[in-house]
């Protein structure tokens, strides 16, 4: 257990998580000041998704500490979860429901009754009058609906796991706009990416993971494509 962290952003010390005998994350230290944005690079299987899922409290760490706003994230997860949003590979959508119904469901679960989902769907470029199930959507359209659902909330820590995957160029631009908007609101961002040339300008710092460890850290502008295979 580390002492109370010096800043009220995201502080990670010695974070480790294994699946069976294999350590997916093995002693990661991170510091992301409040309102900052960190880009996490690394090859497939390097531990990016596990790291983000630990930060989102989807996975319990097997060792180490995560602090958010000077509070232990896992121990205080019930209180801190409304502050954190994770946008990940799994869309978390109900495939038999329309995009509109999906947003209504998630809004109601968050206690937002009377929400009109049209604005959120317009924001991500999905026509609100489409009544067919999400199952019939392309992967990119599903990612847009998942983004609309994430934007229903007003988090202070926004975690994005390969947010550009499956998106067309306008979709990628949309993610950039959303990240810029969130940063303007003072939201802290942690973003896992294989595209440092696109996502680098959105961030203040970058790290590269290899076999669950941080093997490089620096400025996003120094992150070359060799660092993000």
């Amino acid at each position, binding site marked *: 257990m580390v002492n109370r962290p010096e800043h009220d952003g995201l502080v990670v010390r010695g974070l480790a998580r294994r699946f069976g005998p294999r350590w997916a994350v093995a002693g990661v230290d991170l510091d992301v000041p409040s309102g900052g944005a960190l880009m996490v690079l690394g090859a497939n299987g390097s531990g990016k998704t596990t790291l983000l899922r630990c930060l989102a409290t989807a996975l319990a760490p097997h060792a180490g500490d995560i602090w958010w706003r000077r509070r232990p994230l896992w121990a205080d997860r019930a209180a801190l979860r409304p502050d954190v949003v994770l946008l990940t590979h*799994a869309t978390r*959508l109900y495939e038999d429901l329309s995009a509109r119904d999906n947003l209504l*469901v998630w809004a109601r*679960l968050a*206690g937002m009754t009377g929400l009109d989902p049209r604005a959120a769907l317009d924001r991500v470029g999905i026509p609100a009058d489409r009544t067919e199930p999400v199952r019939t959507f392309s992967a990119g359209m599903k990612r847009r609906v998942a983004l609309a659902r994430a934007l229903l909330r007003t988090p202070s820590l926004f975690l994005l796991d390969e947010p550009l995957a499956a998106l067309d160029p306008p979709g990628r631009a949309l993610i950039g706009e959303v990240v810029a908007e969130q940063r303007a609101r003072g939201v802290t961002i942690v973003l896992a990416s294989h595209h440092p040339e696109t996502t680098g300008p959105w961030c203040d710092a970058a790290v590269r993971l290899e076999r669950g460890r941080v093997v490089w850290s620096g400025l996003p502008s120094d992150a070359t494509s060799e660092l993000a295979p």
Partner: protein
Amino acid sequence: MIRLVQQIAAVVWKDLLIEWRGPARLSGLFVFAVAILLLMAFAAGSVEVMRKIAGGTLWVGMLLASTRSLDQSFSVEAEQGALEGLVLWPVDPLALFYGKALANALVLFGVGVALTPLTIAVMDAPIAGSPWVYLGFLVAGSAAVAAPGTLYAMITSQARGASVLLPLLLLPLVMPALLAASRGTTVLMEGDPMDQAGGWLGLLIAFDLVHWSLSGLLFSRIVENP
């Protein structure tokens, strides 16, 4: 507490909306149960035997339909990782359990209500006792399968072969409730001459109280221990 009740209502609404938007699932359950009813009626041969097995046949149909329905209830959560999304949203694990268990009980109760006139017609077994007590059996019996069923469906949803594993775990556990529901329903169809239905219903309600309390606590611990 108000927030918990609101979240339970939201989960019930969500699950029923998913069932409504995928009517093939509901009609599949019903057809499955009707097939069992017809098979048993033809196998019985005589009206006397049909009347004696009508209550049991109704519950066999509902039980087998429930294993399909419970399995589907969590396969939609597992399909795109929605279950994890619900925990992180965050939806209180208690609200998640009681919402899903209530929705499952309502679906099962709906199947029971739809099967009742068919059972009466096909088995020639009218409800000679109180129809309100009969409804009580449908409500309490559906609840008896739904609570432990929701818990086990969540546990097995992450496993390979979930649809095989679920009945293997669930059937032994709910057997006392099914015996009570089956016997009580049969007694009601015979007019309840010995005034036994109340006792069987009481047993069923006691089973519900124990399992709705225990399953809720266990569900919270399991879903919060990734």
